[in-house]
């Protein structure tokens, strides 16, 4: 086996390992997009139910009307879910799709917090969502999600604090406290994502090593057969 042959065969094995790694990664990204698509639709239904149960009606004097929260859940919820669902259907695995989904998921947290009157318990949705986003094994989506939730808390805490904290006069730095806990959570989650991708790569490389071993054994055995060929068969009578 010449050095050129060895290099060509080795490069082909490495290329196959790289292809296997990419295919595995693409499959995870696409299937996670589809998972979030169902979550987006489920959250929409859930938000409408929350609005119907929590605050179905408003009163204008003696006139009973449908509460604005119901319309917010129906229309703003549809707006929040529509782009991620469309992208998950049309462009699964695309980098933009998962960042849009990450942003939309945090905006869903914001909407649910608003619909429940800023209940602190609904803020757990943020942390649950960060955990769900780890399914992508792509740490930058966690940064997108963190930025969106921090900006949401900053702006809404400033112009409409009841909507996010359930009180009218929170400290100005309250959003920083929430952002701190999100940052606390994601630093661990980022490490999990990085390790997970490293393990996927190692798995692909392990396959390449075994393939190289088999290829080397086969090539060496072929050389031996050429050096010491089997005796020729007697000619048929």
């Amino acid at each position: 086996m010449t050095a050129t042959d060895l290099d060509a065969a080795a490069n082909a094995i490495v290329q196959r390992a790289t292809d296997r790694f990419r295919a595995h990664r693409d499959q995870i990204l696409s299937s996670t997009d589809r998972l979030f698509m169902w979550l987006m639709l489920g959250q929409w239904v859930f938000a409408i139910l929350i609005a119907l149960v929590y605050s179905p009606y408003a009163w204008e004097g003696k006139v009973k009307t449908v509460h604005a929260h119901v319309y917010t859940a129906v229309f703003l919820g549809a707006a929040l879910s529509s782009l991620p669902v469309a992208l998950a259907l049309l462009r699964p695995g695309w980098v933009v799709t998962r960042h849009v989904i990450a942003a939309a998921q945090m905006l869903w947290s914001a909407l649910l917090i608003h619909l429940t009157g800023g209940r602190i318990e609904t803020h757990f949705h943020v942390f649950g969502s960060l955990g769900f986003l780890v399914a992508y094994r792509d740490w930058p989506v966690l940064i997108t999600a963190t930025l969106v939730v921090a900006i949401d808390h900053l702006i809404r805490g400033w112009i409409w604090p009841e909507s996010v904290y359930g009180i009218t006069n929170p400290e100005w730095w309250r959003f920083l406290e929430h952002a701190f806990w999100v940052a606390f959570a994601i630093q661990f989650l980022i490490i999990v994502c990085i390790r997970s991708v490293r393990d996927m790569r190692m798995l692909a490389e392990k396959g390449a090593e075994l393939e190289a071993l088999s290829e080397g054994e086969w090539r060496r055995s072929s050389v031996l057969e050429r050096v010491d060929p089997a005796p020729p068969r007697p000619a048929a009578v």
Partner: protein
Amino acid sequence: MAGSSPLGSPAAYDRVGLPEANGAVRFVTKSEFENLPVAERVRLLMGGKLQFFRGDRQLTAREALKGA
């Protein structure tokens, strides 16, 4: 059972002997070997000159890689 994991799989290697150009052998740890670029590991494995060890026991390459 010596040389086996609790699950009975073959023993993983902990040391690898790499052939040098001058005929000598350079020993590296498992993690040092795994940190070599994959293309280099593949070339070395195809060359069939690697020596795998667990402690003092030499393993075949197949034993070593399946147990790793």
